[in-house]
Each structure stands twice: as structure tokens, then as C-alpha cells.
């Protein structure tokens, strides 16, 4: 216990001190590259050193990654706005491909999210017993891929990093998973690749459709009004939206999610639900909406129907699941529906809300999967009809599970509420905007999801935690150990911070969102 605390604190503090000094002295410090390299380095070192060091190395690097994210968060200049810490190295010059990194307020949120989930995931993986070395190699590799995707401003590298993240996921589910793991791994990967096929085609269309032949997102969005005709945008926007939507489990391409999460090992579900899934919504904002504003305006109100289906349908389906992890998976699908719905409002509150909700969903989903992992580790079952009364034997873990459930149903004071409130504020605002708007129907309909969420969330709380202790074996269960509680508490506190005082985060997101809105010419 002491060793873990010391490791975390030492590596966090030392790297924080070094980095905050570096970033002060020169404006050109490549901190974003470090953000990608650190998890790479971690998997490399795990590969080189003996197996018994694997988890410690990962923990050290995850703590460093956390400090990098916090330094970025602090150093990002909110007044200046725009993309900062930009690093531009020509890679294949003839094709206009650059190693181009940069973050704005939205990506800073995602950077923090990634590092938070990486850090807690490293701790959650402490109990891995099987093929430890390989596991941690792939685990960090996955993070490196996601981290790269979040800070890339070049579509080519974005795509590269994204694919980089999907493949370790395949192995993580296929090898360390449970249940129908091979089937689930295959399905997850194929569906995600199916989505990326759309993405790739969309990227190439933009590349060849404009005269500049660039993959630079900034350039593409700048020239979008002149280079891409409305017809072009109307054809390609939905394709890109669906391509990214598959990552965020949009109906009807969501079924990889329940099976995938149901089978994946805990930390893999955390990472996937926490950061990889959020990438879908993020890229819709970053790429699809920014580069095809006309297409977005034309299509988003109609695509909003799909997202409301996500919210309502997945919530309803969650009510009838019999496996704890499947409930969490459907819940995650429904929450991604909120994110996408917020984006579809194309409205400042809605977009702010969507970004906050992406972050919140990442943290809360990770928290939910992590606590389910602990419960599963104790009770050796996730079947709802075999669980019951665990609050009596697992007071701390049970309490955290309850708190996570409350965050899930959008209880104020936790992060979920801030996002959901803003999303609906935006949706109603879109409905208000003179004349008939489809949001007049969709906003109240979507709001119904808050009731449905309460029903399925409280249903599993009641089944799992309340009632008499169901199985005599449960009496021998001991409450969570320090290593198990630490990541859960960490995630809970992050959710609490945003829920209690969202202002700094909103300030961060507001800048890029209003830029985007005025670029698109949406409702401000």
C-alpha cells in the first residue's frame, strides 16, 4: 500500500515539476508528443524488463501521463484559445501528410480523460494473473493509440492512431476476456473496422475533393465553405457521421458494445467505454462538423432521431438485461446517445454539454466497469439472479457502486448532471428557434430517458446491493482492498469535481465550441 502511494506520488510529483518548468521556459516544448510517447515507452519497457516489474512500470508511466495531462490543462491559454502546443513535422511531404499535433479546449478535456482512465486502469489491472507482461504491453499500447488520436490534427495520423488502438483491444478481449470472448472480440473489431472504412472513405473524399490536398483539419475546416460544395457535403457528411458514430455505438451499429464489454477484461472495458468510445463524438465535432458545416446543418436534425433512439431504446433494453456488465454496456450506449444528441443540437449549450458529457461518460463508465469488476471478482458471478444483498458484505465497494450509479443517472453534484442539463438546454433551445423544428419533439422525448435511466440503474442497485444476502458464500467476502478502492475513489472524485464546480471546465470548452458554432453558423 505504502509502496503504491509512494510510487504514484514520486513519479507524479517529479515529472510534474520537471514538465511545468519545461513548459514555462520555452513555448516549443513538444509536450503533446510526450503525451503519446509515454504510454509507448511504458509498453516498450514492460517488454524489456522482467514480468514482476510490469505493473509497476505501467503505474509509474500512468502517473507521469497524468501529470502531463494536468500540465497541459494548466498551461493551455484560455484567453488565446485555438490550437496550442502545435507541433508540425512534414512526414510525407508530397502527399501533404504531416505529423501534426495540437490541442484546443475540447481536446484538453479528452487528454485529461485519457490520462485519468489510464491511471485508474493501471491500478485496476493490478490483479491480472495471466500473461501479465503481454497484457500490460497491449494495455499501454492501446492508450498510446487513443492519446495520439486525441491530439492529432492530421487526418492521416488520426486514422493511424485510431487503428492502433483498435487492434490491442482485439487481443485484450480475445485473450484476457471471459465468456464468448473470441466471438465478442471478432465482432467488436469487425464492426469498428466497418466504421473506419466509412471514415477512411470520407477522409479521402475530403482530401481529393479540395484543391489543397491536405489532411490538416485546420486547413480543411477553413476552406470548407469554398472548397466543398453543399452537394458534396450533403453526400459525405452522413457517411462520416455514421463512420464515427459506429465508434460511439450509434443505433443500429451498437451491438458490438454489449458483447464486447460483456467479455472484455475490466480495464479493457474501462478504456474502451471511457476513452475509445468518446472518440466517436469527439471526431464528429472535430472533423465532420468542422469540415462540412453545410452538411452538418442539413443532416444533424435528422440524425438526431437516431441519437434519441439510442437514448430511449438502449435504456429500455438495459432494463431487461440479466448480466450486470450488459446493463452497464447498454447504459454506456444510451449515454453516448446523449453525447451525440447534444452535438446534433448544433447549439452552444448543446455542444458544451456534449463535451462535458463525453468526459463524464468516460469517467463514470470507467467507474461503473471498475466497480463491477471488483464485485465480479468477489461474487464470481455477474448474473443478476444470483447476486443480492452485497451491501452488507461490501460496504465500501457497495457505496462506491451506488455513487457511480448515481453519477450514471445524472444526479446533480456529480459530473453527469452538468452534461445532461446543458444538452437538454441546448435541445430545447433548438426547439425554440422559431418555426417548426424537429427538436420540439425530440427534446421532451429525449428527456424521458432520465426516467428510464433511473429505473434501470436503481433496478440493478436494488438487485445487487439490497435485500438479504443471497448466497451463503457471500458472507465470506471481504471488502475491497486498498488497490481496488484507490482507482474507484479517484474516478469518483474526478466526477465530483466537475459536478460541484464545472466552471473551469466549461470555460475551457466554451472557446472552441463558440468558434465552431460561429464557423458553422449555427444558433448561438
Amino acid at each position, binding site marked *: 500500500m505504502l509502496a503504491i502511494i509512494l510510487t504514484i506520488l514520486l513519479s507524479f510529483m517529479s515529472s510534474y515539476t520537471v514538465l511545468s518548468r519545461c513548459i514555462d521556459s520555452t513555448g516549443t516544448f513538444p509536450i503533446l508528443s510526450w503525451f503519446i510517447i509515454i504510454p509507448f515507452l511504458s509498453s516498450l519497457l514492460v517488454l524489456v524488463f522482467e514480468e514482476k516489474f510490469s505493473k509497476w512500470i505501467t503505474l509509474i508511466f500512468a502517473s507521469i501521463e497524468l501529470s502531463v495531462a494536468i500540465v497541459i490543462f494548466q498551461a493551455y491559454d484560455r484567453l488565446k484559445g485555438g490550437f496550442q502546443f502545435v507541433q508540425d513535422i512534414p512526414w510525407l511531404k508530397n502527399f501533404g501528410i504531416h505529423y501534426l499535433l495540437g490541442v484546443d479546449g475540447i481536446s484538453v478535456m479528452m487528454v485529461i480523460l485519457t490520462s485519468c482512465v489510464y491511471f485508474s486502469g493501471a491500478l485496476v489491472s493490478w490483479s491480472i494473473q495471466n500473461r501479465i507482461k503481454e497484457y500490460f504491453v497491449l494495455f499501454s499500447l492501446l492508450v498510446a493509440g487513443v492519446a495520439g488520436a486525441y491530439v492529432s490534427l492530421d487526418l492521416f495520423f488520426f486514422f493511424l492512431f485510431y487503428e492502433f488502438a483498435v487492434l490491442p483491444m482485439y487481443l485484450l478481449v480475445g485473450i484476457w476476456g471471459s465468456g464468448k470472448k473470441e466471438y465478442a472480440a471478432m*465482432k467488436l473489431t*469487425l*464492426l469498428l473496422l466497418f466504421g473506419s472504412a466509412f471514415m477512411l472513405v470520407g477522409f479521402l473524399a475530403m482530401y481529393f475533393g479540395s484543391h489543397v490536398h491536405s489532411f490538416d483539419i485546420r486547413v480543411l475546416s477553413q476552406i470548407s465553405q469554398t472548397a466543398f460544395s453543399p452537394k458534396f457535403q450533403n453526400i459525405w457528411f452522413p457517411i462520416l457521421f455514421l463512420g464515427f458514430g459506429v465508434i460511439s455505438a450509434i*443505433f*443500429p451499429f*451498437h*451491438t*458490438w458494445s454489449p*458483447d464486447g464489454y460483456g467479455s472484455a477484461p475490466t480495464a479493457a472495458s474501462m478504456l474502451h467505454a471511457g476513452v475509445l468510445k468518446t472518440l466517436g463524438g469527439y471526431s464528429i465535432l472535430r472533423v465532420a462538423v468542422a469540415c462540412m458545416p453545410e452538411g452538418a446543418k442539413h443532416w444533424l436534425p435528422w440524425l438526431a432521431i437516431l441519437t434519441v433512439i439510442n437514448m430511449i*431504446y438502449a435504456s*429500455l*433494453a438495459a*432494463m*431487461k*438485461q440479466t448480466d450486470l456488465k450488459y446493463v452497464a454496456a447498454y447504459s454506456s450506449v444510451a449515454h453516448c446517445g446523449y453525447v451525440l444528441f447534444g452535438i446534433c443540437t448544433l447549439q*452552444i*449549450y448543446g455542444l*458544451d454539454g456534449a463535451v462535458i458529457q463525453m468526459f463524464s461518460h468516460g469517467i463514470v463508465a470507467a467507474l461503473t466497469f471498475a466497480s463491477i469488476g471488483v464485485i465480479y471478482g468477489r461474487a464470481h458471478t455477474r448474473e443478476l439472479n444470483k447476486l443480492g*444483498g452485497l*451491501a*452488507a458484505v461490501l460496504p465500501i465497494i457497495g457505496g462506491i457502486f451506488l455513487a457511480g450509479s*448515481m453519477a450514471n443517472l445524472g*444526479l*446533480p*453534484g456529480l459530473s453527469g*448532471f*452538468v452534461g445532461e*442539463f*446543458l444538452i*437538454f*438546454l441546448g435541445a*430545447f*433551445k433548438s426547439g*425554440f428557434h422559431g418555426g417548426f423544428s424537429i427538436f420540439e419533439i425530440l427534446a*421532451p422525448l429525449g*428527456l*424521458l430517458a*432520465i*426516467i428510464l435511466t*433511473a*429505473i434501470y440503474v*436503481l*433496478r440493478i*442497485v*436494488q438487485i445487487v*446491493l*439490497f*435485500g*438479504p*444476502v443471497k448466497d451463503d458464500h457471500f458472507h465470506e467476502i471481504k471488502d475491497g482492498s486498498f488497490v481496488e478502492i484507490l482507482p474507484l475513489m479517484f474516478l469518483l472524485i474526478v466526477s465530483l469535481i466537475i459536478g460541484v*464546480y*464545472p*466552471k473551469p471546465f*466549461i*470555460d475551457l470548452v*466554451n472557446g472552441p465550441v*463558440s468558434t465552431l458554432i460561429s464557423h458553422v453558423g449555427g444558433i*448561438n
Partner: protein
Amino acid sequence: MFSIAWWIPLLPILSFITIVLFTKKSKLISSGISILVMLTCFIFSIMIFIRFLSLPLSARPINFSVPWMIISSLHLNIGILIDPLSINMIVLVTFISLLVQIYSLGYMKNDPRFSVYFSYLSLFTASMLGLVLSNNYLQLFIFWELVGLCSYLLIGFWYFKPSAATACKKAFVVNRIGDFGFLMGIITLGLTFHAFDFQAVHQKIALGLNNGVGSTAAITLIALLLFCGAVGKSAQFPLHVWLPDAMEGPTPISALIHAATMVAAGVFMIARTYQVFSASTVAMTTVAYVGGFTAIFAATIALTQDDIKRILAYSTLSQLGYMVLALGVGGYTAGMFHLTSHAFFKALLFLGAGSVIHSMETNDIWKMGGLLKKMKVTGITFLIAALSISGIPPFSGFWSKDEIFDAIQSSHVQGHQILLGIAIFTAFLTSLYMFRLFFVVFLGNGHHEEDSHENHAIHESPWTMLVPMIILAFMSIFFGMINAPHLGLYSKFIYYGSHPQKAPFSIKMVLISSLVATSGIILASLFYWQKVFSAKAVANAISPIYTLLKNKYYIDEFYSFLAKYFVFGLAALCAWFDKYVVDGGMVDGSGKLICAFGRGLRKIETGKIQNYALVIFGAIAVIYLIMSF
């Protein structure tokens, strides 16, 4: 000096955190912290109250704000509004919470989760105080949800009982249904007025800045949506079903949360946003009728119940209905006055019930009887509360109820005569069910002698439980008098508009209401004390009605039918559709299709040169044929 108001919600939050993280092991320290904090909050509230009285009218109200979120031109704040309404509530909430916490020292003494209980109480009080001190709609909603959470935790405090586990879920979900409307109302209001602060919004309404087309319709819509929230939280028909079930929680919780404070939050909210409601006649009329209907509806159910806490719960519903009715007919002062006096006597009734349950270990009134002799303090304080709620002069309940009657009498709501009739008849029912309860439990000869309680000596409760009851009994007797005619202290402090408006005091009304209340008591004594008439015979004579009442109009059954077949039916349909159509059909299906396609193609690759040659020559032949035409 007023900035100490920040500490009023903050201190209990700190106490919650301290107990949960550090002092959980020690019962003494945990409860000590919690009670001391509550005492401090109570003293702070009194200090604010006294200081506020000396403020000139022009300096009122006091408003503090810090930004919580800023999105372009929209400022969302967290703040504190100190005005008579919030002062009334903070004094009330801290006072009752303090008493209930002291009471709980005795009541919960042997519970293994004693410290957790106190931490929840602290969290609840913090949320409630945050709610009543809110200076804007969003914050109101935030704390509104948090008190809901605490209610959930405390109803389910004995989570191992399946009934408690179900009840807390039901409470939360039913409240969520109300909150669905409430949140929609808040969002609509915020977007209409581009502000969430009470003062800003209410000023805009008052100034009529929003004179756009259909603005009255918009305000009506907003008011009705906000009212949905009140219907949920204050358990008005048709969302009343959660409150009786909420009695699964420990009895002090029922006293504090589900009688005195939290359930009154809906009423408080209507009073707080009265500018919105009073701008719409339709909304006001709806409020009045829903309140009136709930009052009589719940009172009839209370007549037939057997569980002491459930009788009190239906009584709470009915009294909340009175408050809502009062606000609906424009009796702002009357509604708040009844809220306050009700808090005292209803808390007392529940604490008394708790004292009885504590010693009898049953909730069934028919298993009790003759307890007055064995539990003198409990019996007498309970009697005081019963007289108060029945509206017997000069007890508190009499004054506040009379105020409501006067308000209805002088209102302009359509059909207010009907409402007055309902209110008076409900007063009769109130004293009838209340004294049915009192006579059966405290005077009747119950069956407890032959029951398992032979060796379990019935005893009076410890002083930690009795002292709060005595204090509340004192309040139940004397509180109402502060608003007696010619004195009218309460009306001078809390009123809506620019100057106090007290409905004219009418002697006729006093006579009617006391007569009605007394006749209820007499009837109850004839049935349940003197046994001149047999209640069973009456029940048999009107057996269909009796069965209907006994089963609470079958509303719970109707809702569970809806939930089971409609909501969960739909859920089953979605789950099935997802598994077999989307996943099995589309996803796996397309996979299988591709595999089948591959298998089909494989047959072409036979590896025999003759086959290939056949295809090649066949193709050439076909091309030749096509070309030659």
C-alpha cells in the same frame, strides 16, 4: 454578517464528509459532530432571523451569488437568497432536524449503522438547507435532486428488508417522473427569460418585459411544468404513491423528511416561484384543485388503514394537499403558515408513533391499546398533536387551518365554494381518522396482552426521545397563536406582494371548523372508545366502498400493472429486438451472408482445368453472340 448563511448548508456537508471518512467507527463522535453542527446551524439561522428583522424593507432581500457556469451571455450561479421565506424554512429545518437527531440517539441506539445514519441525516439537512436558500432555479433543482437522494438512502436504510429496498426505488422513480416535468419547466423558463435567478426572472415577469405573443400561454406552461415537480416531491395525486411506502424507513426519518421538511419542499417551491404561478389563472386553478382533491382523497384512505405510520403518511398527504390548495387559491401566507405549524405537529405525531413502535415492535394499531397508562408522556404529547392537526382551538393547527379556510373563502378561483366544502369535509375526516388512531392505540384494549408482548414489558421511551417530543408539543400548542387576529405576527413577516394581506377573520368560519373537528372526535370516540357503534358493521354495510378505500383506490395496483406490462413490456420488446433483429439479424446476419457468399464462391474454384476451360469458352461464345447482333 449575513454571509454566515453560507455556512448553514456547508457545515452539515462537512459533518457528512467527516463522519463518512473518519469517525464512522465511533458512534459517540459521529452523532456528536452531527448534532453540534445542527445546533450551530440552528443558532446561525436564529441570528440571521433576528438580524433580518431589523433590516429596513428597502435592504431586503439579501442575495449572494458566485458563478457556477458561464456560457456566452448566460450566467448560471450558485447563491443564497435571504428573505422571509427562506428564513422561515432554515429556522424550521434546522430546528426539526436538531430535535430529530437528538431523538434518534435513543431510537437508533442499537443499530449497527448508527454513524452512517447520522451522516445521511447531515447530508439530508445540508441539501434541504441548500434547497431553501437557493437564489435560482437551477440550484433549486440541484438540491431538489439531492434531497431526493437522501430520501432514497434513508428510506432504504434497512436495505436488507426487501420491502425497504423496493420502497426507496419507488420513491426515487416516482419523483423522477415529477422531475421530468420540473426540469422541462426550468429549462423552458430559463430559455424564455434568459436567466435562472429568481430575482431576475421574477422581475421580468413583473415588468411584463415578456409581452411577446402568447406569453401568458408560455407562463402557464412553465407554471404547470414546475408544478409537476411539486406534485412529485409533495406527493400530490397522482404521484402520491411513493410516500406511504416511504414509511419503510426508520421512523425519525419519516418525521423529519417525509412529514416535516422534504415533502414540504414542493409547497415551498410553489411559494418561492409564486410570481410565475400567480401570473397564470389556469395554473393557479389547477394547483388549487389538485391540492383540494389530494386533501380529501388521502383523508378517506387514512380512515381505513391499519398501520400507524401509514395512517400518518396519508394524513401527511392530505395536509400537503391543504397547503397546495391554499397556495392555489392565493393564500400565500396561509399555505406557508400551515406548512410551518404542520411541521411541528406532524413531526411530533411521527416521533410519538416512533416511541410507540420502539416499545411495541409492531406497526399494527390493532395490536396496540391502552398505551396511555404505560407511556404517559408519549400519550399526552400525541394527544396534543392530534388535537392540533384536527384543528381544535387554540392549538396551532386550528389557526393555520382556519387561515386556509379564510383564504379559500375570499379567493377568486372558479368554484371556490366547492373547494371550501372539500376543505371543511376533509377537516372532519382528519379529526375522525386521527382520533380513531388515538383511541385505538392509547385508550382501546388491544390484543397485546395475549400477544408475544407478554414478557416484553411496555415501557416509556428514554429521555433523549421524550425531550424533543415535549418541545414539539409546546410548539404544537402555542405556535399558531402568533398569527391570531390582531396579533398577526406571521402575516406581517411572510407575505406575497408589497404589503401583508390577511384574509378577513370570520367568526362564522371559526365556529364551523371547530364544530366539524369536534364532531369528528365525538364520532371517533363513539366508534373506537365507547364502542357505541361498531366500525365493523359500518364497514360491512358499505363493503364495496370500504374495500376500495382499504386498497387505496387500487392506484398502486394500476401503476404496477402499467409498469409491468407497459414499461417493462416495452423494455422486453427492445431487448428482444436488439438481440434477435439488430444483432442476430443485421450484424450476425451480414456476417453469415458474407461467409455464405464466400462458401458459394469457393465452389467455383474447383481446381479442375476442364471447368475453367468450359467457363472461358462459354464466355467467349456468349460475347461472340452478343457482338454478332
